[in-house]
Structure formats: C-alpha cells, structure tokens
C-alpha cells in the first residue's frame, strides 16, 4: 500500500511538472516588436518618385489649423482625457500599432489572403463555381486569393501606400505642423518622439489607403478591416502621437490616392484572368498541335487551370511587350531524353523522401489556407525591415518594390505557364506521389521559383548584407518544389532565372526613385 501511494504521488508530480509548468500561450514572432523609432525620418521623401501619382501634390490637402486655436487645443485635450486610466486593452493596441503601420497592415493583408486562399468546392454537375466580387459573402466566398491574386493584392496595397506616403511627406514638409507633444510638453507620449511634422499623419494615410484598397480586394471583410482601422486611429490618439486632425487629413489623402490605384486595378485585365472553358480547350488544342502533351487537371472533377489569362495582367515595373520578352524559351520536349531524365529524378525524390526534405517542402509550401509564397516573402522582408528601423515611408517604398516584383513575377510566370501548357511530373508518371498539394495549373515555370528569384533580387538590393541569405532561401524554396515531387528541375531552374530578371527591374527603379 505504501508503494502504491508512492507511485501515485510520483505520477501526479510528473503530470504537474510536464504540463502545469508550461503555459500553452504562444507569442507570434512580431507580437513584441518594439515601437518604430526610425533612424532617419526621410524628411525629403516628398521628392521620391511615386508609382502612379503624377506628383506628390496631385491631391490637395488643406493647410492644418494653427496649434494655438481652440479647436486644436480641444484635440490636445481629447488625447489627454483619453489617456486617463488607460486599460490594459488600450495599452495593448498602442503597443501593437506602434510597431509600424506598414508592418501591421501588411500582416492584416496576409491574414485576409490566408483566410481566402481556399479553392471552391465543385457544383453538383462537376463544374466549379466562381467567386463573385458583387456577392462576396455567398459561397464560394470572394476572393479565392490564390498566389497570383495574392501577389496582385500585396502589390496594389503596397504601391498605393507608398504613393500616399510620398504625398504625405510632401505635405508634412510643406505645412511643418509640430507633433502634439511638441506643442504641449505636458502631454503624455507613449511612443518614441519624432522630429517629423505630424500633419498629415502617416498612420492615417496607411490606414485610409488600406481600407480603400481592401474594399476592392476583400469586399466581404469590411467589418474586420474597419474595426482594425478604427483601432489603429484610436491607438495613435491614445499614444499622444497625433491629434485627430492629423489622422483625418492622412486618412482622406490615403483614400484619394487609393482610388487612383483602384481605377488602375479595375482596368488591369485581372478581371478576365479566370478565362473560360473555350480558352481552356484552346490551350489544350494548341499544345497538341505543337506535338506536345498538354497539361491535364489531376483533380476530380477536373478543375479549370488557375487564372489562365492572368499572364495578360498589366505589370507595374514594365510594359506588356517587356513582359512578353521576359518569357523564357520552351521546356524540354516531352519525348526528349532530358525530360525522361527529369521525370526519373522526380520519381526518385518522390520515392525516397527524407524528413529534412519534407521539412523543406512544408516550410516553403505556402499552399491552401496560407498567405501564399508572396506573403511568405513579405513575412521574411517584414521581419528584416523591423531590425532596420526604417521610416514608414521607407518601409512602404521597400514593401512596394518587393510586392511589385512579386506581382510582375506572377504575371511573367503565368504567361509562361499558359504559353507552353505542359504537364506536371505526376501526370507524366502516375507513380510519382507528391509530398505537398499538387497545384492545378501547368508546371513550367515554377511559381515558387519565379517569386523567390524576384524577391531575393530586390531584397538583396535593399539589404545587401543579407543578399547571400536571400539567394540561399530562394534556392531552397525552388528546390522544395522538386522535393515535393510537383515540379521538374527545368521548371525550377528557369523560374529562378526569370524571377531574378523581374527583380532587376525593381532594382533599376530603386536606384532612381530618389530614396537612395
């Protein structure tokens, strides 16, 4: 009985040690990001080259009211009274948003992409329903934010935020309104001081731009987006960084600039990217006419290939002729010895998996219900940008360069896929089993490789000391698609080369946009 008691006690003790001691709560990697405290305010960023705006003053912003007016003083008092007895929830939102407006809205966008990155379930007759932008909450929810859709969404939001911030910096310098804590030294400031003029508020600009862009890109999620925007603006007042008129002017400017990007987006041919049955049939017929084996959907029921006309979408970094010129030559002929060897290579990788290769496949898979490969590169970039203490406008510029590269990479990649319309490894050898989900579109060239080549190129320019690591990551991301048994070597090798070429256009832009 004594022994029994002892063993029971031991069991309970082990139970307690193993589990009660360790908390289950998990912090996200950017949850505890310190408040943004830029090493350089980039005061002259109003002169940087915008992407769509004709100039930083294209949209007029009225001069701010003087800081000695009763109205301004009332706004100072709004801050002061809001700071009385701050709740822990209020402290938390101040901390969250002070990490950076571009960072947080990029994360929110990644969240929306992950939420919506789910292919629709088939209809009873074996066809697939298309999400509808005009009825986004009906099944299938709009959008299906697959990688090309996501790449374009990241690019538009980032580019609009950059242009809006260039305009904001122009007006900041022009009007030179001091921050509320410089006007009233008794004000409690919960974020780092800055010498940057506070009107219009960069946070208002970023939130206003995001809200407006997301009405177009994620029209069914406005309640979530509006709640984030309201929280963001509140955080800036609670922190003492901005008075209400700073934020309202920024928000108005952000919306105006965003509307210009919305107009561009409505005419960039993405609306026709899904294609139709006739276009799908034609791709198949043309491929057979060339004497090649066309891609066949391996889903049941057969699903239309993803966004077959996306290659025609208007790029940001180059015109459509340049986009076509970036298209690589054809993949190895199906009957060639090279293709036989490449099929065998993937078969062997599929047959002989290792735990480390699975790790690499899954690390880079970024498949269903994730923020996609462009989102993964945004995450990599964001975590590095945090360490750089960029100003908001430089954050926006760097994110815009990265995301325009990723979008344009997706355009060239999709154009290539539907030019050659070639098969996946498991189509040519059904014994090939995959270590990740098989993408439902042609193989050549690998999207992951093209995205990663482009991202590594521009990020290596922005943070040169990390260039070697970015290239190593891109190589691994590319290789992961062979390890996953869903791509041939040619898809990956050529994809990386094409991606790097796309990235070089972003580098050229970066060298001449006035920020370096």
């Amino acid at each position, binding site marked *: 009985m004594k022994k029994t008691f002892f063993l029971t006690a031991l069991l309970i003790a082990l139970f307690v040690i193993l589990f009660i001691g360790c908390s289950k709560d998990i912090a996200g990697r950017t949850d505890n990001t310190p408040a943004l405290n830029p090493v350089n305010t980039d005061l002259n960023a109003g002169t940087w080259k915008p992407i769509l705006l004709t100039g930083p003053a294209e949209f007029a912003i009225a001069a701010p009211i003087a800081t000695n007016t009763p109205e301004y003083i009332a706004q100072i008092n709004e801050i002061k009274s809001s700071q009385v007895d701050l709740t822990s929830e209020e402290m938390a939102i101040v901390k969250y948003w002070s990490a950076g407006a571009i960072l947080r809205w990029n994360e929110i966008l990644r969240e929306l992409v992950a939420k919506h990155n789910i*292919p629709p379930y088939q209809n009873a007759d074996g066809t697939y329903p298309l999400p509808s932008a005009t009825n986004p909450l009906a099944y299938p929810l709009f959008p299906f934010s697959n990688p090309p859709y996501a790449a374009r969404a990241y690019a538009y939001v980032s580019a609009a935020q950059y242009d809006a911030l260039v305009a904001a910096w122009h007006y900041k310098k022009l009007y030179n309104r001091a921050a509320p804590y410089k006007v009233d030294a008794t004000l409690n400031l919960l974020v780092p001081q800055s010498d940057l003029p506070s009107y219009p508020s960069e946070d208002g600009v970023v939130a206003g731009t995001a809200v407006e862009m997301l009405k177009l890109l994620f029209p069914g999620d406005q309640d979530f987006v509006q709640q984030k925007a309201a929280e963001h603006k509140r955080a800036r007042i609670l922190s003492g960084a901005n008075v209400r008129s700073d934020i309202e002017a920024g928000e108005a400017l952000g919306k105006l600039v965003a509307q210009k990007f919305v107009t561009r987006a409505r005419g960039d041919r993405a609306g026709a990217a899904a294609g139709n049955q006739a276009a799908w049939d034609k791709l198949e017929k043309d491929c057979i006419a060339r004497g090649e084996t066309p891609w066949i959907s391996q889903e049941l029921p057969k699903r239309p290939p993803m966004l077959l006309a996306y290659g025609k979408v208007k790029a940001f970094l180059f015109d459509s002729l340049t986009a076509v010129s970036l298209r690589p030559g054809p993949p190895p002929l199906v009957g060639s010895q090279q293709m036989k060897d490449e099929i065998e290579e993937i078969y062997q990788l599929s047959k002989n998996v290792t735990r480390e290769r699975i790790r690499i496949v*899954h690390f880079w898979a970024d498949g269903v219900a994730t923020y996609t490969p462009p989102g993964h590169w945004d995450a990599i970039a964001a975590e590095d940008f945090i360490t750089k203490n960029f100003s908001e406008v430089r954050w926006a510029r760097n994110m815009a360069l990265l995301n325009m590269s990723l979008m344009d990479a997706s355009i060239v990649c999709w154009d290539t896929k539907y030019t050659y319309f070639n098969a996946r490894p498991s189509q040519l050898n059904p014994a090939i089993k995959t270590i990740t989900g*098989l993408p439902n579109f042609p193989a050549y060239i690998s999207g992951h490789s093209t995205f990663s080549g482009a991202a590594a190129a521009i990020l290596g320019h922005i943070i040169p000391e990390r260039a070697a690591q970015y290239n190593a990551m891109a190589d691994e991301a590319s290789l992961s698609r062979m390890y996953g048994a869903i791509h041939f070597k040619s898809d990956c090798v050529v994809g990386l080369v094409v991606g790097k070429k796309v990235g070089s256009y972003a580098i050229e832009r970066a060298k001449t946009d006035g920020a370096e």
Partner: protein
Amino acid sequence: MTKILLALLIMLSPVISSAQTDMDAIMMGKKRFCIGPMYSYSSWKDYWEGSLKRDNENIGTVSTEMTGLMGNYGISSKLNVLFSLPYVKTKATAGTLKGMKGVQDLSLFIKWMPVETEMLGGFFSLYGVGGFSFPLSNYVADFLPLSIGLQSRTASARLMADYQTGSFFVTASATYVLRDNIRIDRTAYYTTALHLTNEVKMPDGANFNFRTGIRNERLIAEAVVNNWNTLGGFDITRNNMPFPSNRMNATTIGANFKYVILPVRNEVSMVLGANTTVAGRNMGKSNTYYGSVFYVLDFNRKTKSQDQPSKTN
C-alpha cells in the same frame, strides 16, 4: 494552387479500442507480464468537414495501418503499468498525396485499483489511471489527413468504475487528456486568425468509454461505446485542409472479444475487435478492425501457489 485534399483521421481510435488496455477493468496479477503484438486497420471514405459529412474524390479512401507492441505488468494485483508502441502507415487511394509511415507515440499508463468490494451480490471496483504519451520520432503532424499522428505530448487522468455479477459486467470511464503545444514545419498558419509562429496550441480532450458484456476466466465479449471530444479547436472551413488543432470529435461503437486459448500459467490469449464511427466532427467516419495475441510471462516463483483475484487474467 494546391489541389484540395481534405479530411481527417487521427490516431486515437486504434489505441483506445484495443483490449487489454488502460481502458478496461482488467488487472494483471503480481509479477505477471502480459505482452503481445497488435495490428489494426482503420479506413474511411466519408469525413466530417466541421459538421458537414462529405467525401473527397481527390483522396478516395484513407487508411491507417498500425502494428505495435503492447504490454501490461502487474506490480501488484492492484497496481499495473501498461505501455503501447505503435508503428503507423497511412495511405490514400486517390489523388497524388503520398502516404506517411513511422514510429508514432509511446504511451505509458499506471493503473491503480484502490477499491474492490462486494456489492449487491457482485463485485464493484474503482480505478484511477494516469497516462503519458510522447512522440518517439520527429514525424510530420501537419500533413493531415495523412499524418501518422499529431506530435503532441499528452498526459491523461482517468476515473473508471466496474461492476461484475456472475459473468455480466459493466465498465464506465471518463478521461481528461492534456495536450501540449506542437511545432510544425511552417512558420505561419491560419486557424480562425493568422498565427505568425510554428508553434500550435492544441486543445485538450475528454474521453468517455462505456463497455458491457460477459467476462469470465476464458472469455470476454463486450460491446463498447467510446466518445472522444476535443475541448476547443476550430472547424475545417468549406473545402479547406484539416489542421492538427481542429476540433476533432468522434463517437464509435464496437465489439471486442478476448479468448484465452491456453489457460495455463503462462497463458496465451487473443483479442479481436472492430468499431465504427457513428458521429464525428472534423474526423473521418472510420471503420476499424484489430487483433492481437498476448502471452503472459509469470515472474512469480513456480513453487508458490498462485492465488490470483477472480478478475485477473
């Protein structure tokens, strides 16, 4: 975009449903060690996506084969330790996804019978069972429905009551399972929100088990109802992939037979059983068949006469 291949499985049911386990009211006598191989085959074609029952042509039928070793040692007739060590192999009959295989989790239990008393012309006994399980290999958890397990370390506490009169018996138990966080190969995942981490919070679980039938020296024949509930977790959204921290519930009904083939001191017995899932959430509607052979090693000195309690086998 990746092809959609959904559904779920989870490795709970095969371990839970085998006989001579932590969930039955059978104790090994002192210094007796019962050990044997087990095999189970579980498969499903339909599964619950949230509460919606569906199939998936891109995955066909998912099967899970488990071979393992189970053992039960009597420290005393009131205190036993048990272990199980499974090797698991999964396969899908349609689609391109490759099945997985590997050594899964080692489970250890301590089973204690503090109360055994005569009551209403029969015997009533109470049990307390404490368990741990932990993965023995770095297998992939985040590849449902073809993962071989969930990688979560668990600790469980069970209260079990048994009543036997003549050959008729009834056993009921309730278990709380603590499940530790797991780490997956990717750096971010979406549940009902985006998580920028490779660590996944696993909801705890509760299990209820009820079994009744006949039990004597040679034979056990019992009907078993089992109900597993994840306390938290989220539903698979429409046409989405399953995820380790989904809310996974399953109710199974089954039958279980144990027959002592050689009723000698070092007895040999065999177990056969099957169960089917009658209700579930974010799991496969699986049918499971299993069998095992057990051999008892008696470490008592041969000269000493054996005086085993009636319920010992």
